[in-house]
């Protein structure tokens, strides 16, 4: 592979010289000018955070590209890697990090991260460390939370559900009172949510033992979650619209949906999608299967990688570290994007005593995040999460449309993931 790259690389050099005329000069330094780093992120308001860096570092200017949506960023990184025009720095969700490592996109950043284990939240450290090397600077962890409309719950005499039974009961009550209103939607396109709910119930979809992988997507814990939601869908007391669509946005804004199984990063998204509902939302811990032993899954969370193709690897590492560990950056991040920092120092900020602007009525928001973090389960993501999630979307879309078994859909996903791993050449247990 490398020889082919090199030979073609020589040819590419000749051609790309002329291409630069049209391409502009992405990431390449001019003779005397500052180093320019290209940074991909999907975080809301990330420009404001980057602006803080650019002001303080005139010699290392960062251009942030938010044109790639969070759901597509891995695909676009893979495409860019193939084309040889990766950005210098990019954000990635933890679940996609293994894919980026095996495709030689995420560079080893142990030289800036290696000695920070004691300053980093344990789950975030585990999710970014493979075979003793660090491959990303973790940005935050994302404690799973339930957000609900206090006004609607109060109108129906409901309390925030603490168990899944209560949650189901709330779904029935709300839908019975107004057939146009739903407690929630079960979105076939949100594999991340389903994975997190399964993890809460005790599932480990991917796990690694030595050099062998095992895949347990259709295990009992996931099956329990599948049955639970299938029941609600069949009763008709939850909607089935996809999340992150215009229909869903309208439903949040007009009160068709009155809660959201989200995470610590959710408030700014509700704010953007349903600005009129400010002050009406409250965050609580997720409903539990066994309240005496609470658990929460990993719902997103992201880190910052430096790519293997960066022309300025040192500057890129410096920026990635600053972005996720420095006081200035974390303060800006918390203010604009509601992250729950992975850097332990970041959790001491005064800023965290204040709730997100959208949840101004909830002063203990970050305290709650800290509590949930305590019982968030440990998770290993496999090297083909994207393939698994893609199959999930299609299989669950079909299952919802045809009224077929969600458990069978999980079987389809597991089979696809195993086949894909075998094709890639992994040993499966």
């Amino acid at each position: 592979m490398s020889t082919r790259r090199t030979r073609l690389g020589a040819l590419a050099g000749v051609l790309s010289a002329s291409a630069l005329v049209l391409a502009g000069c992405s990431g390449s330094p001019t003779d005397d000018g500052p180093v320019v780093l290209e940074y991909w992120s999907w975080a809301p308001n990330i420009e404001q955070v980057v602006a803080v860096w650019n002001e303080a570092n005139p010699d290392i200017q960062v251009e942030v590209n938010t044109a790639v949506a969070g759901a597509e960023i891995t695909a676009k990184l893979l495409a860019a890697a193939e084309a040889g025009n990766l950005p210098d720095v990019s954000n990635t969700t933890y679940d996609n990090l293994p894919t980026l490592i095996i495709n030689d996109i995420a560079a080893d950043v142990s030289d800036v991260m290696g000695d920070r284990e004691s300053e980093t939240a344990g789950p975030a450290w585990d999710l970014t460390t493979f075979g003793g090397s660090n491959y990303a600077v973790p940005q935050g962890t994302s404690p799973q939370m339930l957000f609900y409309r206090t006004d609607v719950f109060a109108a129906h005499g409901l309390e925030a559900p603490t168990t899944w039974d209560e949650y189901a009961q709330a779904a029935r009550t709300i839908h019975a009172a107004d057939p146009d209103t739903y407690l929630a939607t079960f979105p076939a396109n949100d594999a991340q949510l389903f994975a997190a709910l399964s993890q809460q119930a005790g599932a480990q979809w991917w796990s690694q033992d030595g050099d062998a992988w095992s895949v347990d997507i259709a295990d009992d814990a996931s099956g329990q979650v599948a049955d639970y939601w299938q029941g609600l869908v069949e009763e008709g007391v939850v909607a089935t619209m996809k999340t992150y669509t215009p229909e869903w946005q309208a439903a949040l804004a007009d009160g068709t949906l009155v809660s959201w199984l989200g995470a610590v990063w959710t408030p700014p998204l509700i704010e953007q999608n349903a600005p009129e509902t400010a002050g009406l939302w409250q965050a609580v811990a997720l409903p539990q299967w066994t309240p005496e032993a609470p658990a929460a899954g990993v719902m997103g969370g992201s880190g910052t990688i430096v790519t293997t193709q960066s022309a300025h690897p040192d500057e890129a590492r410096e920026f990635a570290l600053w972005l996720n560990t420095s006081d200035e950056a974390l303060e800006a991040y918390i203010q604009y994007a509601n992250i729950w920092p992975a850097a332990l120092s970041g959790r001491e900020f005064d800023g965290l005593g204040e709730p997100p602007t959208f949840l101004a009525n909830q002063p203990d928001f970050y305290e709650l995040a800290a509590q949930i973090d305590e019982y968030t389960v440990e998770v290993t993501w496999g090297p083909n999460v994207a393939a698994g999630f893609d199959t999930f979307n299609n299989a669950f879309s079909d299952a919802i449309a045809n009224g077929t078994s969600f458990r069978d859909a999980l079987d389809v996903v597991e089979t696809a993931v195993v086949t894909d791993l075998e094709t890639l050449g992994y040993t499966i247990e």
Partner: protein
Amino acid sequence: MSATQARTRTRTEAGPGTRRRPSSGILPTAVLLIGAAYCLLPVYWLISAATKRPDELFSTFSLAPSFNGGFLDNLVGLSQYAGGAFWQWCLNSVIYAGGGAVAATAVAALAGFALAKYEFPGKRLVFGYLLVGVLVPGVIVAIPQYLLLSQLGLAGTRWSILLPAMISPFSIYLTRVFTAGAVSDEVIESARLDGAREFRLFRSVALPMMVPGLITVFLLQFVGIWNNFLLPFIMVTRSDMMPLTVGFYSMMNQGSDQTNVYSFVIMGCLLAVVPLIALFLFLQRYWRLDLISGSLKG
């Protein structure tokens, strides 16, 4: 040639009047108007939706325009979206469609002229080779093109969209067909006797006669590139390289992560569609689609 004959017999724009009879045309006219309404309805919807503020978009009757300043807000919001990305996309679309279509037309003019007016060994083979390109869907070669241009380090640059746009087998085919009729052999021979070199002959003698047809070829290719989605979608990831189609798609798909943008997308669609429709109406008389309908007989 039959194509020429067909054209000489073609009635002119004022033609239908000559055989229009005073019979009842209510039914055919009604059917045509229904068709027109079907085609204009989405455009009207677009205009109406563009006048709405984000909070009105999902809450007011869709075909009733709003006059609460939403139009201006959306215009300003769109202009400022991601640092003026919309205007960059417009410029990119013009560069890709304009540059690609000019190059493709030039290539087609040369090749079409050679195929129409010269006899040479291997002509059938060359024509067949180029013609297979008509049949291979551009969508399908897009991924191989991406792989190859990646290896050359060109993917992600403007070249990765411009280069594939420069070769249009259908344009070559069309140019060959109309050139055979538009440029007479006698004119070429007499120019040769006057001692004209071959390229001068092409440029000064044949080209002027080919211009009407070449304008149509240019317009077809322009629209083809302008409307193309998959190729630029695959080729570029940076916002400042995207044409309008890919830009809108990316805007639409990050409604979740960034600010509520559906109103801006709608405004953008309107701004992108209206000038192109206007351009069409303006250039209508240059459309020589009889070239296409005549081409099968050529």
